[in-house]
């Protein structure tokens, strides 16, 4: 601080130059810090996604062009017709009477004849008429992670945003003690996701879990215990429910601030007109919340794409990859395997997805007049 004060009155500078110098010096710390720890890493993610950079490596780093993106994102369709007996023209059937198909391996291991399928793996397949169509991907786990993350976002954004609005409207009444409820609803937001995730691991437990107990009590013993996090069908919904529980208070408070900017005069006018509950919501509340809605939606989406801590602590991507997420894969590669370029490639893909979605959301929710 002392050095800064000394430099504020250097001789030979006029008033404006002096002001500019002080202005620069005051902004300098954050400029240097943001450059080093945000802007440079951000552009480095782009740069390194074109290389084979590793955190520690004996070999020099090479430029590999788009190979990382190809290795991550290639998806090909392969439709195979059933095998036919060459003389009779009849379908060859296996012992159960189902049509048989050429082996997938013949296509994905033959670089000379089928370079486009080389080294791809089966993501999933479906049958239509008699033929079978394989959806092949270069990186099946990443595709699953991408799909899961989108699924997470698509569910979380409306559910969490809607519930948050509902809670905000419940709290936006003039009742004695209403602040106590606001305090309680918001409480999980200040608790670390690490703590919340561990706590819910215990709540979701299959043998001793409190959730099973509660459900059994509420249904008078009719409910069969579920091992929520070990069951592929329930693991992701369980993560979602917990994530909403933890974060909904955050968005509730933002909605509440929005609700409180709507003049009560408008509601009084609506009452005079004889508007019912839904009309008041539709024509007074909702138009007054436009900007808040856009903001809440974008914030939830950005946070939801960052899905990591829950996965890391509760499921580690399992069971059978049903809770793999993009950021979890990014950390697995970038940190777990010291594969900086692989992790960076995922970072770049994630950035473009988030950017595209927030631009799309802004476009769809723009003022239409």
């Amino acid at each position: 601080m002392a050095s800064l004060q000394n430099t504020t009155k250097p001789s030979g500078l006029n008033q404006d130059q002096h002001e500019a110098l002080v202005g620069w010096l005051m902004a300098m710390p954050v400029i240097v810090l943001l450059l080093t720890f945000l802007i440079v890493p951000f552009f480095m993610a782009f740069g390194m996604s074109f290389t084979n950079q590793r955190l520690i490596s004996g070999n020099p780093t090479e430029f590999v062009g788009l190979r990382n993106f190809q290795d991550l994102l290639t998806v090909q369709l392969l439709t195979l017709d059933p095998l036919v007996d060459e003389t009779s023209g009849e379908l060859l059937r296996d012992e159960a009477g189902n049509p048989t198909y050429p082996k997938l391996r013949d296509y994905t291991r033959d670089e000379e004849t089928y370079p486009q399928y080389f080294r791809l793996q089966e993501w999933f397949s479906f049958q239509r008429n008699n033929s079978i169509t394989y959806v092949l991907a270069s990186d099946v786990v990443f595709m699953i992670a991408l799909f899961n993350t989108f699924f997470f976002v698509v569910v979380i954004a409306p559910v969490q945003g809607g519930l948050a609005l509902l809670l905000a409207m419940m709290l936006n009444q003039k009742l004695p003690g209403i602040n106590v409820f606001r305090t309680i609803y918001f409480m999980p937001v200040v608790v670390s996701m690490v703590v919340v995730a561990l706590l819910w691991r215990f709540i979701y437990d299959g043998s001793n879990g409190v959730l099973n107990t509660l459900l059994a009590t509420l249904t008078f013993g009719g409910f069969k215990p579920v091992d929520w996090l070990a069951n592929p069908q329930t693991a992701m919904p369980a993560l979602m429910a917990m994530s909403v529980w933890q974060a909904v208070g955050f968005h509730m408070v933002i909605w509440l601030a929005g609700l409180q900017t709507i003049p009560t005069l408008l509601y009084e006018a609506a009452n005079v007109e004889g508007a019912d509950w839904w009309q008041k919501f539709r024509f007074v509340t909702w138009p007054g919340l436009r900007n808040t809605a856009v903001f809440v939606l974008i914030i939830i989406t950005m946070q939801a794409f960052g899905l990591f801590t829950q996965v890391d602590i509760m499921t580690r991507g399992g069971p059978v990859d049903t809770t793999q997420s993009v950021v979890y894969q990014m950390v697995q590669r970038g940190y777990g395997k010291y594969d900086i370029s692989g992790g960076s490639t995922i970072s770049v893909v994630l950035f473009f997805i988030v950017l595209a979605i927030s631009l799309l959301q802004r476009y769809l929710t723009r003022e239409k007049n």
Partner: protein
Amino acid sequence: MDTGIKGRYFYQFLALRYLMLIAVALIFAFPLVFMIVSSLKPDMQLLRDSSSLKAFVPYGDLSLDNYIGMFNRVPFERFLFNSVFITATTTAFSILFSSLAGFSFAFLKWRGKGIVLSIIIATLIIPAETTAVPLLFVVNSLPWIGKEGLEWGWLNSIHVQIIPFIADSFSIFLFVQFFRDLPRELVEAARMDGATWLQVYARVIMPITGPVVATVAILKFLGMWNQYLWPLMVAQSEEMRPLMLGVAYFFQLDVAWGEVMAYLSTITIPVLIFYLALQRAFIESIASSGIKG
């Protein structure tokens, strides 16, 4: 909101509203009550109780044994010191540097200011997760002056958990926003009286910037105290770890659930107390981050 018909229906409706509010409150409070109640029970009872609603009732053989056991399992003092030091240092420097920059952007004229500020605002769209991996690479190649002179690489240290998080665009944005709404005469009058820019900042502007300082402090405190991904990547050795990484210690050999609950309670209760004491400021700081959307 009500039209003022205070009949039987009004009170029934009022009771219904409170019932709904209470039901929702239970959903939010139960897991935390369960955590604190369980931390006081011996493991046998804890596991037995969790298969009934007794899980939420503090009864039976209550003691602080789990807390004692917890202290034996993790180097608690070390972790606590690290967490407090990292959180406090980052928050303090963040407030200082962000407010200085905000002051400069709002009140001083210098070339390039507009562009620099636009770039800072534009970085708000970068999700923190997307820079984590390249940041790991950047900090691994930075110099530091340590005990043995010049060293390369910041990994496995305390400062790697502090310095990258001091400046964040959002805090700067909040200060700029607040300063721009202040009357410029405040600054001009003080300058006329011969105050240096630093004096204007420290004696005129900062004393009336309490609300923004509180907002930045709270958001930073929450973010830093609860940080998990970054320390997981950079704090390899035990003496560098913050409290959040301590949870892994309870899942190594035998899982002692009572001790887990004691640890979770211990790292959460300070935040909860802080929150309950300052809940107005907490909620307002979150809300204020929303209105600007």
